């Protein structure tokens, strides 16, 4: 049973990491708690649903939905946050504006699409599963695992290996200095929004596929876990998000499997609070002056 539980934990953790990748990027670079992030997740899932219903195969629907969610993210970021960024408003203002926006967006989506849970066409991914050494893993779960690894790899390549990545890191460290050095921070912010939104969208598709439930509020339900992963992993730290996601998944599953299932949710928050108390730079992170 332990092997299966560990596998469960890793797979659950992969969904958390997948959700948190774009969140940590947006949070780390743009320095906003963007509560709308969960909505990009919802948007991606719905785009893929519509495309799949129109007969697109998953291989095409997934990137298209991710791009769609990215575009939504850029549009909303421009609409809500450019003004505040230009005015150098504090993080409270951006928190509030995204709070208001996400309230309106979920409600509008529910009014328009209805609150019902939808499912992707069942033949999108084969319903099969792999059975080995007493551990069962489905194809959808393997897909999430693979996608999670691939996206982390691509992101790290982008941030560490390109000039664009250098500009992004510069903006994350010191936005004003970056602007002085000739980086067009507004355009860069739009780009980061696009990447984060696409990641959220891709996460929405894959997680929607795995749990087979797509509905307007699905993004909201991931947000609290997203906070835990981003903070425990260290702000803007992509590897950190991956590790923290996996850790959270495994800890939750082991808590539910061997301790008490009622504590499954609380254990993540307890970890969050403990990490903030003892290692505010994140479990794997470097020191970050902004925290203390």
């Amino acid at each position, binding site marked *: 049973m332990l092997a299966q539980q560990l596998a469960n934990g890793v797979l659950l953790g992969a969904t958390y990491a997948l959700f948190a990748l774009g969140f940590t990027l947006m949070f780390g670079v743009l320095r906003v708690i963007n509560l709308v992030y969960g909505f990009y997740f919802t948007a991606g899932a719905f785009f893929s649903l519509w495309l799949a219903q129109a007969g697109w195969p998953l291989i095409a629907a997934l990137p298209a939905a991710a791009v769609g969610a990215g575009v939504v993210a850029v549009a909303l970021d421009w609409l809500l946050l450019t003004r505040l960024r230009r005015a150098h408003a504090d993080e409270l203002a951006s928190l509030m504006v995204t709070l*208001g926006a996400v*309230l*309106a967006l979920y409600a509008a989506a529910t009014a328009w699409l209805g609150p019902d849970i939808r499912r992707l066409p069942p033949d999108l991914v084969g319903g099969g599963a792999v059975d080995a050494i007493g551990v069962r893993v489905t194809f959808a779960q393997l897909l999430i695992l693979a996608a999670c690894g691939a996206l982390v790899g691509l992101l790290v390549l982008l941030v560490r290996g390109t000039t664009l990545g250098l500009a992004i890191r510069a903006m994350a460290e010191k936005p004003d200095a970056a602007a002085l050095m000739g980086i067009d921070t507004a355009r860069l912010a739009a780009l980061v929004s696009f990447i984060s939104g696409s990641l959220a969208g891709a996460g929405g598709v894959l997680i929607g596929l795995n749990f087979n439930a797509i509905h307007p509020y699905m993004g909201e339900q991931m947000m609290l876990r997203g*906070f835990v992963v981003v*903070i425990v992993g260290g702000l803007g730290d992509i590897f950190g998000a991956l590790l923290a996601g996996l850790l959270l998944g495994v800890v939750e599953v082991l808590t539910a499997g061997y301790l*008490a299932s009622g504590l499954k949710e*609380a254990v993540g*928050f307890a970890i969050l609070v403990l990490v903030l108390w003892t290692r505010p730079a994140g479990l794997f992170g470097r020191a970050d002056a902004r925290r*203390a």
Partner: protein
Amino acid sequence: MEAWLDDLFWTYQNLVVSLGINGLLALSMYVVLAAGQLSLGQAAFMGLGAYSSVLMTLAWGWPFWLVLPASCVAPVAFALAVGGPTLRLSGVYLAIATIGMGEVLRAIYLNVDALGGALGLSGIPEQASPLLIYAVLAAALAVLWLVGRSGLGRAMEAMREDATAAEATGVDVRRMRLGVLVASAVLAGLAGALSAHATDFIGPNDYGFEPAVTILSFALLGGVGSPFGPVLGASVLTLLPEVFRDFANLRLVFNGIVIVLAVLFLPRGLLAWRMPRRAA
């Protein structure tokens, strides 16, 4: 009283009560924001006040005049216990840590049978009259007004502008932070006890993440230049859903849009006025 007036009051009694309670919660948010802290533990404090007061009433049979002040004990104890390590954090980290603590408390309410689990606690006698609620609100406003005009208020404002600079001018930032957290816990605890004794029923989901951000939005919408701003913000956000009632499922949409527009175009809040202060 005229019958129609009676009916009118009865219809809006819960709204009147909510306005008062939410005003108190907004003030509980205000005291931390006024000192430059983004602590989102108000809903958690409120829950502690509500649950502890209901236990005092239902299990121990205490009279309400004793229950009300005693309802501050649990939230204040919690604030003191978690305050030390938590207050080293600032900005969004503090916000997220306090939300995390709120969720841990929610898990406790859900898993402890004596607290009713998901069924919550019901059959609470309605002992908190609107008059009492508004008296507490008025008292809180008066105290905060006086404190705001005093040297303490100046120190808080200095902390809000720049904590390091404030420290350099001799403000004991650590003690101040803990102080405002305790004040926030007292106000939220009172609000919790009053609301529990005004509606007959409390449940674990009334004090989670969503209420926490709602309370924040009260204060920010109103503006934190004076204690009146948050109360105004709370009133507006409490009334909006009722005003938009006829829009049925679109009313949350309007609610959200109002918040967005207010933040974008009224950055100092609805009530930008800052309270006058005697010269130093």
